Protein backbone atom coordinates (compact mmCIF):
# COMPACT_ATOMS: atom_id res chain seq x y z
CA UNK A 1 0.00 0.00 0.00
CA UNK A 2 1.27 3.42 -0.92
CA UNK A 3 -0.07 6.47 0.82
CA UNK A 4 -1.42 8.50 -2.08
CA UNK A 5 -3.23 11.01 0.10
CA UNK A 6 -2.61 14.43 -1.45
CA UNK A 7 -1.16 17.34 0.49
CA UNK A 8 -4.52 19.08 0.19
CA UNK A 9 -7.94 18.58 -1.32
CA UNK A 10 -9.29 21.43 -3.42
CA UNK A 11 -12.81 22.37 -4.55
CA UNK A 12 -12.22 20.88 -7.99
CA UNK A 13 -11.64 17.52 -6.30
CA UNK A 14 -15.05 17.56 -4.63
CA UNK A 15 -18.37 16.09 -5.67
CA UNK A 16 -21.41 17.05 -3.61
CA UNK A 17 -24.64 15.08 -3.69
CA UNK A 18 -27.88 15.30 -1.79
CA UNK A 19 -30.36 12.45 -1.61
CA UNK A 20 -33.84 12.84 -0.24
CA UNK A 21 -35.05 9.69 1.47
CA UNK A 22 -37.36 8.00 -0.99
CA UNK A 23 -35.91 9.99 -3.88
CA UNK A 24 -32.67 9.78 -5.83
CA UNK A 25 -29.24 11.27 -5.33
CA UNK A 26 -28.53 14.41 -7.30
CA UNK A 27 -25.27 16.23 -7.74
CA UNK A 28 -25.24 19.87 -6.72
CA UNK A 29 -21.50 20.36 -6.97
CA UNK A 30 -21.49 23.24 -9.42
CA UNK A 31 -24.16 25.17 -7.56
CA UNK A 32 -22.30 25.37 -4.27
CA UNK A 33 -19.93 28.21 -3.40
CA UNK A 34 -19.24 27.33 0.20
CA UNK A 35 -19.62 24.40 2.57
CA UNK A 36 -19.23 24.38 6.32
CA UNK A 37 -19.56 21.68 8.93
CA UNK A 38 -19.99 22.66 12.55
CA UNK A 39 -21.53 21.57 15.79
CA UNK A 40 -21.14 18.06 17.08
CA UNK A 41 -19.35 19.35 20.14
CA UNK A 42 -18.83 17.09 23.13
CA UNK A 43 -18.65 19.29 26.17
CA UNK A 44 -17.61 18.27 29.62
CA UNK A 45 -18.50 19.79 32.95
CA UNK A 46 -16.25 19.91 35.92
CA UNK A 47 -17.78 19.32 39.34
CA UNK A 48 -15.51 20.30 42.14
CA UNK A 49 -15.48 18.29 45.36
CA UNK A 50 -14.01 18.77 48.78
CA UNK A 51 -10.40 17.89 49.13
CA UNK A 52 -9.46 19.43 45.78
CA UNK A 53 -11.05 16.66 43.77
CA UNK A 54 -12.76 17.16 40.43
CA UNK A 55 -15.29 15.00 38.70
CA UNK A 56 -15.64 15.25 34.94
CA UNK A 57 -19.21 14.92 33.69
CA UNK A 58 -19.51 14.19 29.98
CA UNK A 59 -22.38 16.03 28.33
CA UNK A 60 -24.36 14.70 25.41
CA UNK A 61 -23.06 15.49 21.95
CA UNK A 62 -24.50 18.49 20.14
CA UNK A 63 -26.17 18.27 16.76
CA UNK A 64 -24.03 18.66 13.66
CA UNK A 65 -24.75 21.70 11.55
CA UNK A 66 -24.13 21.64 7.82
CA UNK A 67 -24.42 24.82 5.77
CA UNK A 68 -24.16 25.49 2.06
CA UNK A 69 -24.00 28.75 0.17
CA UNK A 70 -25.71 27.99 -3.12
CA UNK A 71 -26.90 29.49 -6.36
CA UNK A 72 -30.67 29.64 -6.45
CA UNK A 73 -32.27 28.90 -9.80
CA UNK A 74 -35.03 26.44 -8.96
CA UNK A 75 -37.11 25.07 -6.07
CA UNK A 76 -34.65 22.40 -4.98
CA UNK A 77 -33.77 24.08 -1.71
CA UNK A 78 -37.33 25.01 -0.89
CA UNK A 79 -38.16 21.32 -1.21
CA UNK A 80 -35.66 20.69 1.56
CA UNK A 81 -37.67 22.87 3.90
CA UNK A 82 -41.14 21.83 2.80
CA UNK A 83 -41.79 18.78 0.71
CA UNK A 84 -45.23 19.87 -0.39
CA UNK A 85 -44.39 19.61 -4.06
CA UNK A 86 -46.62 19.57 -7.12
CA UNK A 87 -45.22 18.99 -10.58
CA UNK A 88 -47.13 19.28 -13.82
CA UNK A 89 -45.08 19.00 -16.97
CA UNK A 90 -42.17 21.39 -16.68
CA UNK A 91 -43.66 23.34 -13.78
CA UNK A 92 -43.00 22.67 -10.13
CA UNK A 93 -44.65 24.30 -7.13
CA UNK A 94 -43.44 24.12 -3.56
CA UNK A 95 -45.80 25.29 -0.86
CA UNK A 96 -44.69 26.18 2.63
CA UNK A 97 -46.07 24.21 5.50
CA UNK A 98 -45.03 20.81 4.19
CA UNK A 99 -42.91 18.42 6.16
CA UNK A 100 -39.15 18.37 6.22
CA UNK A 101 -37.91 15.09 4.84
CA UNK A 102 -34.58 13.56 5.78
CA UNK A 103 -31.64 13.83 3.42
CA UNK A 104 -28.35 12.10 2.89
CA UNK A 105 -25.65 14.64 2.16
CA UNK A 106 -22.33 13.52 0.78
CA UNK A 107 -19.16 15.39 0.00
CA UNK A 108 -16.40 13.36 -1.59
CA UNK A 109 -12.95 14.54 -2.49
CA UNK A 110 -11.04 12.42 -4.95
CA UNK A 111 -7.40 13.18 -5.60
CA UNK A 112 -7.28 15.01 -8.91
CA UNK A 113 -3.64 14.09 -9.43
CA UNK A 114 -4.76 10.52 -9.85
CA UNK A 115 -8.25 10.95 -11.26
CA UNK A 116 -10.63 8.11 -10.65
CA UNK A 117 -14.25 7.65 -11.53
CA UNK A 118 -16.81 7.43 -8.75
CA UNK A 119 -18.30 3.98 -8.43
CA UNK A 120 -15.30 2.22 -9.88
CA UNK A 121 -12.76 2.82 -7.19
CA UNK A 122 -11.37 -0.61 -6.29
CA UNK A 123 -8.20 -1.13 -8.25
CA UNK A 124 -7.95 2.46 -9.42
CA UNK A 125 -5.01 4.67 -8.54
CA UNK A 126 -5.53 7.54 -6.15
CA UNK A 127 -6.93 8.48 -2.79
CA UNK A 128 -10.23 9.73 -1.50
CA UNK A 129 -12.01 11.23 1.45
CA UNK A 130 -15.72 11.61 2.02
CA UNK A 131 -18.06 13.01 4.64
CA UNK A 132 -21.57 11.63 4.70
CA UNK A 133 -24.51 12.80 6.78
CA UNK A 134 -27.58 10.62 7.08
CA UNK A 135 -31.01 11.88 8.05
CA UNK A 136 -30.10 15.54 7.79
CA UNK A 137 -33.05 17.88 8.08
CA UNK A 138 -33.23 21.29 6.48
CA UNK A 139 -33.60 23.89 9.20
CA UNK A 140 -32.95 27.18 7.43
CA UNK A 141 -33.03 28.62 3.94
CA UNK A 142 -32.32 32.27 3.35
CA UNK A 143 -32.10 33.93 -0.05
CA UNK A 144 -30.25 37.05 -1.04
CA UNK A 145 -30.01 39.04 -4.24
CA UNK A 146 -28.01 42.26 -4.12
CA UNK A 147 -28.34 44.69 -7.01
CA UNK A 148 -24.79 43.93 -8.14
CA UNK A 149 -24.94 40.20 -7.64
CA UNK A 150 -27.02 37.18 -8.52
CA UNK A 151 -29.61 35.24 -6.55
CA UNK A 152 -27.97 33.16 -3.87
CA UNK A 153 -29.06 31.28 -0.82
CA UNK A 154 -27.78 29.78 2.38
CA UNK A 155 -29.15 26.40 3.33
CA UNK A 156 -28.70 24.91 6.75
CA UNK A 157 -29.14 21.30 7.83
CA UNK A 158 -28.98 19.71 11.25
CA UNK A 159 -28.02 16.12 11.91
CA UNK A 160 -28.31 14.20 15.14
CA UNK A 161 -25.08 12.44 16.14
CA UNK A 162 -26.98 9.13 16.18
CA UNK A 163 -30.42 7.82 15.33
CA UNK A 164 -32.97 6.34 17.73
CA UNK A 165 -31.06 3.05 17.70
CA UNK A 166 -27.74 4.73 18.48
CA UNK A 167 -26.40 4.27 14.97
CA UNK A 168 -23.99 7.09 14.21
CA UNK A 169 -25.29 9.30 11.40
CA UNK A 170 -22.18 11.18 10.38
CA UNK A 171 -19.50 9.24 8.56
CA UNK A 172 -15.99 10.21 7.55
CA UNK A 173 -14.30 7.68 5.34
CA UNK A 174 -10.88 7.87 3.73
CA UNK A 175 -8.83 5.60 1.53
CA UNK A 176 -5.15 6.23 1.10
CA UNK A 177 -4.69 3.98 -1.90
CA UNK A 178 -7.49 2.82 -4.15
CA UNK A 179 -5.20 0.28 -5.81
CA UNK A 180 -5.16 -1.64 -2.53
CA UNK A 181 -8.39 -3.49 -3.08
CA UNK A 182 -9.38 -4.43 0.48
CA UNK A 183 -9.22 -0.77 1.49
CA UNK A 184 -10.94 0.59 -1.58
CA UNK A 185 -13.59 -2.10 -1.32
CA UNK A 186 -14.32 -1.05 2.25
CA UNK A 187 -14.28 2.61 1.23
CA UNK A 188 -17.17 1.87 -1.12
CA UNK A 189 -18.78 -0.90 0.92
CA UNK A 190 -19.11 0.93 4.21
CA UNK A 191 -21.22 3.56 2.51
CA UNK A 192 -23.35 0.91 0.84
CA UNK A 193 -23.99 -0.73 4.21
CA UNK A 194 -24.94 2.61 5.74
CA UNK A 195 -27.22 3.40 2.79
CA UNK A 196 -29.06 0.17 3.48
CA UNK A 197 -29.13 0.76 7.23
CA UNK A 198 -30.70 4.19 6.87
CA UNK A 199 -32.86 3.38 3.86
CA UNK A 200 -31.15 5.46 1.15
CA UNK A 201 -31.25 3.10 -1.81
Amino acid at each position, binding site marked *: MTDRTPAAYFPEDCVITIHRKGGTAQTITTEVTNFSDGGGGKDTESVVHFGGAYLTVKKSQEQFEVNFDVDVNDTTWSQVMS*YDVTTIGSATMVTSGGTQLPYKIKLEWLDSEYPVSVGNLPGAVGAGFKIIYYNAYGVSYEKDNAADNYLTGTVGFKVEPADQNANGQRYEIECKDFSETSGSGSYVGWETIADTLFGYI
Partner: protein
Amino acid sequence: MKYKITNPTRRTYIVQGHQLKCGESIELDEIKFTEPSLVVEKIESKHKNVETKSSNKKSEVRSLETNGFEKHIGEE
Protein backbone atom coordinates in the same frame (compact mmCIF):
# COMPACT_ATOMS: atom_id res chain seq x y z
CA MET B 1 -42.70 -4.16 -16.72
CA LYS B 2 -39.84 -1.91 -17.73
CA TYR B 3 -39.52 1.77 -17.03
CA LYS B 4 -37.65 4.41 -18.93
CA ILE B 5 -36.39 7.22 -16.73
CA THR B 6 -35.30 10.45 -18.39
CA ASN B 7 -33.50 13.32 -16.75
CA PRO B 8 -34.72 16.57 -18.33
CA THR B 9 -32.93 18.77 -15.78
CA ARG B 10 -29.46 20.24 -15.81
CA ARG B 11 -28.44 18.26 -12.77
CA THR B 12 -26.93 14.82 -12.71
CA TYR B 13 -28.98 12.21 -10.87
CA ILE B 14 -27.77 8.90 -9.55
CA VAL B 15 -30.70 6.57 -10.18
CA GLN B 16 -30.37 3.29 -8.33
CA GLY B 17 -26.63 3.32 -8.83
CA HIS B 18 -26.66 4.57 -12.42
CA GLN B 19 -25.46 8.04 -13.27
CA LEU B 20 -28.01 9.96 -15.30
CA LYS B 21 -26.72 13.20 -16.75
CA CYS B 22 -28.74 15.98 -18.33
CA GLY B 23 -30.98 14.65 -21.09
CA GLU B 24 -29.95 11.04 -20.59
CA SER B 25 -32.33 8.11 -20.17
CA ILE B 26 -32.06 4.74 -18.53
CA GLU B 27 -34.25 1.64 -18.48
CA LEU B 28 -34.98 -0.13 -15.23
CA ASP B 29 -37.11 -3.12 -14.29
CA GLU B 30 -38.11 -1.60 -10.97
CA ILE B 31 -38.38 1.89 -9.59
CA LYS B 32 -37.58 2.44 -5.94
CA PHE B 33 -37.89 6.19 -5.73
CA THR B 34 -40.13 9.18 -6.25
CA GLU B 35 -38.49 12.17 -7.83
CA PRO B 36 -40.59 14.99 -9.27
CA SER B 37 -37.85 16.17 -11.61
CA LEU B 38 -37.41 12.88 -13.43
CA VAL B 39 -39.73 11.68 -16.18
CA VAL B 40 -40.82 8.08 -15.84
CA GLU B 41 -42.27 6.18 -18.78
CA LYS B 42 -43.67 2.67 -18.83
CA ILE B 43 -42.13 1.03 -21.85
CA GLU B 44 -44.59 -1.85 -22.31
CA SER B 45 -47.62 0.40 -22.52
CA LYS B 46 -46.86 2.29 -25.69
CA HIS B 47 -49.98 1.30 -27.61
CA LYS B 48 -52.70 2.12 -25.16
CA ASN B 49 -53.63 4.51 -22.47
CA VAL B 50 -52.49 3.31 -19.10
CA GLU B 51 -53.60 3.92 -15.60
CA THR B 52 -51.01 3.87 -12.95
CA LYS B 53 -51.82 2.59 -9.51
CA SER B 54 -50.66 5.09 -7.01
CA SER B 55 -51.59 5.98 -3.51
CA ASN B 56 -50.07 9.35 -4.07
CA LYS B 57 -52.58 12.16 -3.88
CA LYS B 58 -50.56 14.32 -6.18
CA SER B 59 -49.72 11.91 -8.93
CA GLU B 60 -50.43 12.63 -12.51
CA VAL B 61 -50.92 10.16 -15.29
CA ARG B 62 -50.86 11.21 -18.87
CA SER B 63 -51.97 9.35 -21.92
CA LEU B 64 -49.10 7.87 -23.83
CA GLU B 65 -50.94 8.37 -27.08
CA THR B 66 -51.67 12.02 -26.55
CA ASN B 67 -48.52 13.09 -24.81
CA GLY B 68 -45.94 10.58 -25.83
CA PHE B 69 -44.93 9.96 -22.28
CA GLU B 70 -46.24 9.14 -18.88
CA LYS B 71 -45.21 10.84 -15.76
CA HIS B 72 -45.49 10.00 -12.11
CA ILE B 73 -45.03 12.76 -9.70
CA GLY B 74 -45.68 13.56 -6.13
CA GLU B 75 -44.50 12.23 -2.87
CA GLU B 76 -44.76 9.38 -0.51
